[in-house]
């Protein structure tokens, strides 16, 4: 009992047991590097989340407000499989891909496809997706509040310790590497899917001209399912990574919803445009915040507003998007 205390027994002493080394970087450089690093992390996650929204929107015209919930469910699916059922982190990753993917497909089959069949408008899709989002988010909250209170806040087990310190000051964790790595991997895989496979080309064709795709004989129901699955799975894996970084709760996804929309809209609902916009939003958001905070003392809680301002500004002045990379399909709508 005393052993541990004796290590730092002198509570009154002002020096710490930890070694004190000198700070090597000036504070502003360190601050900006830190902002960029965290920005890349969050930006990669935004990109992963927003790509799903983009391809779903392109193929089915659903501006899906429930998309953010797949992020949450990804984190929770991973938690259940990796922690509760002890399938390990790989098992968790698979769950984070598959379960939100299936969830998204079911969401489409139960809600959006029937609405599409009866000729609903995109606005009705949007309202229905708000309904879907309410159902998904609050049923998880209800479950957490009544049945399993440990679900109010979850985190995945491997704590992101600093694995490297830039200049001895700025910590880099494995999540800072994992997020962009997964982002790049997903981008490459999707690129291959869209350019090398018949299915991927058919997805692009459907996105490009749904009526013609149907007439051409493309099985648009299969395309729909695949699209929703990919969208859900990408959001889910983003949620999975996020739950390593910091604890997730049933409202985690909801917090990101407008960031996701901002990224997709800034990218003009194009595939590469969305990815680049997502990453940029992450970095710009953090760096702007840091500079504005240090120079004019702008409160850090304005950060979500940055995404929203970008969103509104893009919609009003360039509704077709800012970063549009048309060469790879998924162009903005006419």
């Amino acid at each position, binding site marked *: *009992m005393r052993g*541990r*205390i004796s290590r*730092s*027994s002198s*509570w*009154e*002493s*002002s*020096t*710490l*047991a*930890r070694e*004190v*080394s000198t*700070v090597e970087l000036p*504070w*502003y450089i*360190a*601050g900006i590097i*830190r*902002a960029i690093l*965290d920005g890349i992390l*969050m930006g990669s996650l935004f990109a992963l989340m927003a790509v799903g929204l983009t391809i779903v929107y392109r193929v089915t015209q659903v501006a899906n407000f429930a998309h953010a919930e797949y992020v949450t469910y990804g984190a929770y699916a991973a938690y259940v499989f990796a922690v509760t059922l002890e399938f390990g982190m790989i098992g968790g990753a698979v769950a984070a891909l598959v379960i939100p993917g299936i969830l998204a497909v079911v969401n489409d089959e139960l809600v959006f496809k029937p609405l599409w069949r009866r000729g609903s408008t995109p606005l009705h899709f949007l309202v229905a997706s708000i309904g879907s989002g309410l159902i998904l988010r609050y049923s998880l*909250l209800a479950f957490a*509040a009544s049945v399993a*209170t440990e679900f*109010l*806040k979850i*985190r995945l087990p491997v*704590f*992101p*310790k*600093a694995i490297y*310190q830039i200049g*001895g*000051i700025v*910590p880099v*964790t494995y999540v800072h590497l994992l997020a962009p790595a997964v982002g790049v991997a997903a981008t490459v895989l999707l690129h291959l899917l869209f350019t090398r496979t018949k299915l991927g080309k058919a997805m692009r064709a459907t996105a490009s001209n749904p009526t013609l795709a149907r007439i051409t004989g493309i099985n648009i129901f299969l395309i729909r399912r695949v699209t929703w699955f990919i969208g859900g799975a990408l959001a889910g894996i983003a949620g999975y990574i996020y739950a390593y970084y*910091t*604890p997730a*709760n049933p*409202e*985690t996804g909801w*917090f*990101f919803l407008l960031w996701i929309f901002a990224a997709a809209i800034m990218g003009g609902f194009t595939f590469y445009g969305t990815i680049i916009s997502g990453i940029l939003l992450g970095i710009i958001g*953090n760096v702007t*915040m*840091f500079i504005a*905070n*240090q120079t004019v003392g702008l*409160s*850090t*809680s304005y*950060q979500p507003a940055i995404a929203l301002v970008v969103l509104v500004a893009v919609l009003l002045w360039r509704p077709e998007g800012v970063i549009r990379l048309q060469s790879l399909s998924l162009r903005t709508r006419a």
Partner: protein
Amino acid sequence: MAVGKEGAILAIVALIIGLAIGAAAFKGGGETVTETVTQTVTQEKTVTQTVTAQGGSGGAAPAQTVTQTITQTVTQTVAGAGQGGGLSGEIPIGLAIAVSGGYSVDGPRRLNGAMLAIEEFNSFLEQVGAPFRFKPIHEDTGSKPEGAVNVINRFAGLGIKVVVGPLSTSETKAVMPIANEKKIVIISPSSTGKAAALPDDYVFRMPPPDTAQGPALAKLIKGMGYEKLVIIARDDDYGRGLANLVKENFENMGGQVSVITYQPNQPDYANEVNQLSTEVSKFGADEKTAVLIIAFDTDGTNILEHASRDPVLGKVRWFGPDSMKRNTFLPPDAPKEIADFLMSVNFLVTTPSIARNPVTEHFEQAYQQKYGESPTPYAYYAYDAAWVAMLSVVAAGKYDGEAVKQILPQVAFHFMGATGHKVLDKNGDAAFAAYDLSTVVEENGEYKFKVVGIIDSATGQITWYE
């Protein structure tokens, strides 16, 4: 050192007498009385030991008052109930206690404390055959002021006159006008902020207010030799209020303070920690600089998490107020790394010092038995708040906000609870001045907060236990 062994024993005896009389007066019959007495007597030994071991850590009121009070309380109570009052059927006690949001981890434990009190009281009422029972009506405030206001408005609509909760200062301050307007007695088990300190109103608070804690913290940090202090605080009435109190006092003593406030209820605080790290760098991350964090569950965990991997923030010492002494920062609720970080920065928190007494022992045992864990600091206060609420209703003899408000200070004055003696000041807040200093320790792989000292907020005198 104020209360010796003698005093403690005296207090216990007084309590036993009081309970016995109380039990008898409730027409419970001989059986009940005997039972109650036996129970309490059994506890006597344990209690005496504890108190001795702690060396009577101070802060408790003179023993003599205690003796008188309890007898009086129960007599009053009895008088009210004896008249039959207007009490019958189910009497609702509103529990506006957050179980989600900033209190998602600690809130349910405080709710448990209040529920336990109501349960005990009801079984007591049953034993004495009283024609009424207390019915807990709980609703989650989401730890947010607007949530608390909605809950109190709903409570008002439902005719609830006595409410235990809400927890935070923001919530308490927000419901204060409504409580006054609609004559609803609010007993907050944990609000300490300056903003909700007002005289002659319907709001009562069990813990001592921050007007004592603020100076105590400043004196503590300055007294330990720190010249520069970075405060990161919730931008609400509690966090900002306490931060300002500390800043004011610290600067008056010649120190340098930088305050960072952040919006509660954000998903992530990477930016704020970046800012914190920057401020610390500007001051110089050395033995003259300290950090004071004023946070709740969710935000606190997140900030500590980011801080734990930041080399700069690991170089300075960290302090925290009462809101930081939570199990939520320790395993199993939080990753081990956070607890390790808190240990490595010699994290020191102040909590209002509790004068341990038989009720404390009883509460801890009952809580442990019912919920399978030991209570968190503010669960004690929730328990006491519920007891005071119910005793006041009984003492008033009718379920009426105004009557309860009138009698509550009296009841509280004569009340000895799990957190000790409740003397309320003119603002309806517990008047108290000593703060325990706790730090995180690891024993056999188990992390916990351990009391290592005490500070007197008036004199700033620090006593270390080791």
